């Protein structure tokens, strides 16, 4: 599947715009909307690029979510707001809600072979997303704890000397 640069740029812009409206619908704080929208667009681009290079679907979901999760943790520290506020809007393009719908549709229309296929793919996709989120969350928390203890020890040393 070849991806043309023009198409990528178009999809990036469309995805960013769609994320903006989703953020507004979720009542995200106004000042966070531009950044989360850009992150949403970027995650879709990463996702599409990985798929276009014949990478396994699961890694596309994983790295797409990684982009979102890492940016969300960084922005959470900068804006001093909880991370889910940045994760929810930007994650919408990557989350395979349509796949879930197709699974349910296959079941309702009695196409059981497709149901089994789609259900398994959906489950793996969601697991990849959840693992990416969990890993980043744990890493970010350990890093903050480590940095804050280091800063505290430096402060104590400086106070001890003076």
């Amino acid at each position, binding site marked *: 599947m070849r991806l043309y640069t023009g198409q990528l740029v178009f999809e990036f812009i469309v995805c960013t715009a*769609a994320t903006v409206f989703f953020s507004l619908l*979720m009542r995200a704080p106004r000042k966070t909307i531009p950044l989360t929208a850009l992150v949403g667009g970027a995650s879709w681009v990463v996702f599409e690029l990985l798929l276009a290079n014949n990478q396994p679907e699961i890694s596309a979901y994983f790295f797409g979510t990684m982009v979102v999760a890492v940016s969300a943790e960084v922005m959470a520290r900068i804006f001093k707001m909880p991370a*889910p506020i940045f994760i929810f809007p930007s994650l919408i393009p990557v989350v395979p809600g349509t796949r879930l719908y197709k699974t349910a*549709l296959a079941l*309702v*229309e009695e196409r059981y072979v497709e149901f089994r296929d789609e259900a398994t793919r959906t489950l793996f996709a969601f697991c990849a997303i959840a693992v990416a989120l969990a890993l980043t969350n744990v890493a970010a928390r350990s890093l903050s704890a480590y940095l804050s203890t280091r800063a505290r020890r430096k402060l104590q040393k400086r106070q001890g000397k003076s």
Partner: protein
Amino acid sequence: MENDTVLLTEVLGLAGMLILENGGDTHRAEETAERICAAAGRPGSDVLALPTGIMITIAPYCNKKTGNRPCAGDCMACSRSTGDGEPVTLIRRVKKRTINLEKLELANRAARAFTDGKASLPETLTRLREIDTQSTGNKYIDAIYSGLSCGLFSLLFGGGWFELICAFLCGFTAQLVSSVFQHSSIYQFARNFIGGVVIASLAVLLTTFFGMGNINIIIIGSLMNLLPGLAMTNAIRDTMTGDLVSGVARFADVLLIALSLAGGVGVVLSVFIGLGGVVR
């Protein structure tokens, strides 16, 4: 400090409910409640948060500083072990779950203000009550946002300008219809099933009337707003952080939503095909 247990129960109930109602996970609600209790001098309190409610037992006042470690309840400072003083249990039911990041952030900030010592308990209670009774915005503007985002997503799934317009109309109407049911008790189910029916009917009408457009792209684009993708992510995250009941409950919720949506769309499509229509 010892006598403000009633005030504390109100604050805890509101804080927990606000977080669970507006998109926070159970871990966040439990952590917030535990921090509020510790800041109020009762670090031995126990919190159980579920998607459908929060249950807190507030230990008697002891004001021991346990830092980041949870209180083990085995020191004599807490009158729990000596039998003096009474623990108080409160349960707060959470009847609806939406994603409202503004309320989530405000509730989090109000709770933080108390645990950092910058606000008193009565102030926090007033603040939380304000957040709870905030107006939730204009339903027409929400419908426009919904329509626009659905339309743009249909572009992303390979649609053209006709799919854009159709998905906008479908998303707009679906959001309006679901806002009618906002205060009823079958809000979740009605929103998804009737939303699916509305979207599918409108999509079918528009494609047959104008004779062009890919109906699958239109339907999938318009469903983006209703799809439980984020709920499923939260389900797996809750299971991973160890809250198994919450994870399984949310997973069941996701299944129900997906089946309602597919059921709504499936009913309309099969009626349409049965009446001799052609699905392009």
